[in-house]
């Protein structure tokens, strides 16, 4: 005879019974809306992905016997006579942080039901994201012309290329997907699609966008500045 679920729960030791009671019985464990909980679920899993990439980069760099190319020189830009280290990367960082700021403001205007301003700031965020991807495409083109490949480069350790193209490529893919995501949300805001169901979806899109910025914080620090 199969036991009923209730009987099985009652037969559990107390510590397990309490835990099961908290997480089952149609309870909402996290007391946030479903979409937000799922976006956090995705973000935590994506943090593992980037955590694995950055760890693999650390291992590759520590294991490299040839000297690691100096990012300050690799990513320097010539402006007139002088060479400014990491200039493009600094501008990209400023652009992405700005887009995070405009995103936060878009979420605020969404909850205030100011549709025009929410859509405006979402569009602005998408535009800054597009600028970022554009600059990254420029950077990739420049490096590829200089002979950088995932398996070799003219300046030293061949592991540099595989780490660089993998990490920035995957991040750029996230930014590109985010731009499409934001444009979709912006058009829905403008259409008034959230007037009845509320503006949580703008905040959820914001979570994704801030996460992309968050990842860049670590790439900027550990790949470009170390």
């Amino acid at each position, binding site marked *: 005879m199969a036991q009923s679920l209730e009987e099985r729960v009652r037969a559990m030791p107390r510590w397990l019974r309490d835990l099961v009671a908290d997480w089952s019985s149609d309870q909402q464990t*996290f*007391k946030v809306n479903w979409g937000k909980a799922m976006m956090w679920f995705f973000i935590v899993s994506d943090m593992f992905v980037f955590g694995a990439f950055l760890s693999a980069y650390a291992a590759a760099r520590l294991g490299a016997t040839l000297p690691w190319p100096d990012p300050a020189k690799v990513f320097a830009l010539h402006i007139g006579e002088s060479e400014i280290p990491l200039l493009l990367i600094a501008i990209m960082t400023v652009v992405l942080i700005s887009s995070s700021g405009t995103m936060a403001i878009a979420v605020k205007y969404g909850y205030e039901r100011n549709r025009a301003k929410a859509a405006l700031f979402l569009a602005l965020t998408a535009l800054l994201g597009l600028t970022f991807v554009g600059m990254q495409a420029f950077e990739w083109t420049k490096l590829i012309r200089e002979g950088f490949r995932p398996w070799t480069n003219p300046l030293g350790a061949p592991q540099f290329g595989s780490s660089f193209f993998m990490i920035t490529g995957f991040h750029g893919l996230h930014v590109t997907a985010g731009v499409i995501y934001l444009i979709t949300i912006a058009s829905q805001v403008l259409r008034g699609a959230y007037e009845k169901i509320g503006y*949580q979806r703008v905040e959820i899109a914001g*979570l994704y966008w801030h996460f992309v910025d*968050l990842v860049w914080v670590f790439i900027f620090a550990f790949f470009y500045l170390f």
Partner: protein
Amino acid sequence: MEHSGEQHHPIRVYLVVWGLLFLLSAMSYFVDYFEVRPKELAWFLITAFALLKAGLIVSYFMHVRFERLSLVYAILLPTLLILALTAFVMAEGSYVFDVRAIFFGR
């Protein structure tokens, strides 16, 4: 705020965090630009600035500071496990370096 699941905060909060993010980014850039030495000090400063930036983004832009603890723990505790992975593969990376140095002599 708790009832609707909406996050309402004055715009000033976002602008202050925004400004701090710019400041911290600029400071970490200048650590590299002015070639702060010893290298360990530069690495320490860059890591510290990055963690501060990450904390600001997660706490205020992603509103984690205002969420319930059950969600905060569910987000932060698994993420911290990444550090264990990083520590293990860094040890492995150093080992690979030694093996290469011994067998390939460079």
